């Protein structure tokens, strides 16, 4: 109960630190999820509905990248962005863009992989039907994406879940700088190591609540879509 009151106090009290941390976390996750959704769904849909030489190799590499630990993604981006790295001149390390890059690097393969599987499961019969009517490439792509949209929404949610819960990549390239790159997960790590269990628990609960909120919204959208269809 005391923990609960403390969360309320921190959330709405005069000190804006917790609100700042939440804002940073949401900004980061929304940015990285949006970017990797666009890349992931485009490339994934392409992979899902085409056959070409070398596709098996690409899929194997993709599946390997899908199980990449987040610290490894962080490490690679860290090396790229560090002062002596190939992209060092931009001075991005320990900033929001660096964290976005690391998360996009981490999440995009998962998005590509799942989009490809989703699309591949439906593309063949859809393409046979649309080509039989010669609807054209544009209509084909639109219809495939439309038919897969509920599943693709789940793919996006899963990406968001991975982004918001991930700690290894953001702490490596973000550096957990107070008021700038400190996010909920890295704060939990820090506060726990300092013995502030209450604060950590509060943040943990908040993280879960955010997930609950987003998933409820998605579920509502899915159910509304199905209901609309059935009512006709």
């Amino acid at each position, binding site marked *: 109960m005391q923990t609960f009151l403390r969360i309320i106090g921190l959330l709405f009290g005069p000190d804006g630190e917790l609100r700042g941390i939440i804002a940073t976390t949401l900004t980061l996750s929304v940015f990285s999820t949006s970017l990797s959704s666009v890349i992931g769904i485009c490339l994934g849909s392409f992979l899902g509905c085409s056959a070409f030489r070398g596709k098996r190799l690409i899929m194997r590499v993709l599946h390997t990248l899908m199980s990449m630990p987040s610290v490894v993604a962080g490490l690679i981006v860290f090396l790229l962005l560090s002062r002596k790295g190939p992209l060092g001149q931009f001075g991005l390390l320990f900033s929001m863009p660096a964290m976005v890059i690391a998360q996009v690097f981490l999440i995009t393969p998962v998005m590509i992989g799942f989009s490809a599987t989703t699309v591949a499961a439906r593309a063949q019969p859809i393409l046979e039907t649309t080509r*039989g009517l010669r609807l054209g490439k544009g209509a084909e792509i639109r219809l495939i994406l439309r038919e897969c949209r509920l599943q693709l929404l789940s793919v996006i949610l899963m990406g968001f879940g991975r982004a918001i819960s991930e700690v290894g990549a953001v702490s490596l390239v973000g550096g957990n700088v107070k008021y700038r790159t400190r996010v909920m997960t890295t704060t939990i790590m820090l506060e726990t190591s300092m013995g502030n269990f209450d604060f950590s628990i509060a943040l943990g609960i908040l993280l879960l609540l955010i997930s609950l909120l987003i998933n409820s919204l998605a579920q509502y959208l899915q159910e509304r879509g199905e209901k609309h269809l059935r009512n006709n």
Partner: protein
Amino acid sequence: MRSILEITNLVKRFADSEILHIHHLVFHEKKRYAFLGENGSGKSTLLKILAGVLPADSGRIAWGAKGADFAYIPQRPYCFHLPVWKSITLGITAKNKQQKKEIAIAALDEVGIGALADKAEVYLSGGESQRAMLARVMLRERQALLLDEPTSAVDYEGCVLAEAALNKYQSQNGCMILFATHSVEQARRFADEVIVLQNGKVIAAGSAEQAIHDFYAIRTGLS
């Protein structure tokens, strides 16, 4: 009569076994052809190749002067998460939504399912969706219709309606209709010419009566 489609030495293999080998077939405008054969005889494979959704391993498919101007219904067409009227008018241009819907309902009425226009296509029964697919191709002006067992799940009255609608469509635009069926009755009833397939080869072809006669003769080993 002008020829619309000519097939020469068409071969298709799956995993090294020859599924289809057609030496030579010619199809003419204003005619109706049935590919008659048992399950697995290669009807769908041949239609898929003609429709360009499956590549052949070798051989030649030559469409006539107007090119590959066809509409194709796969054996298992995809049913969209769309109202039937929208699904069947995909790619059709109309003045406005209202007019498009009217066009769709008129076409659905022809095959007896005008009342289902607003229903989502995914929730149609097998026979209903096959009727919708037929309405969809008949909304398009094409030189050839390639139909893969288009009425296999349609009840008898529905078949009669569908065949009448196809008849009307054909008499208006003089197209060629090519359909696969495993029903000797349908072939006899609706086709001008019948091509009997067995193990991917043409074993009889010609006028419906003649080809069906040959088909039975071969089947019962009398030939």
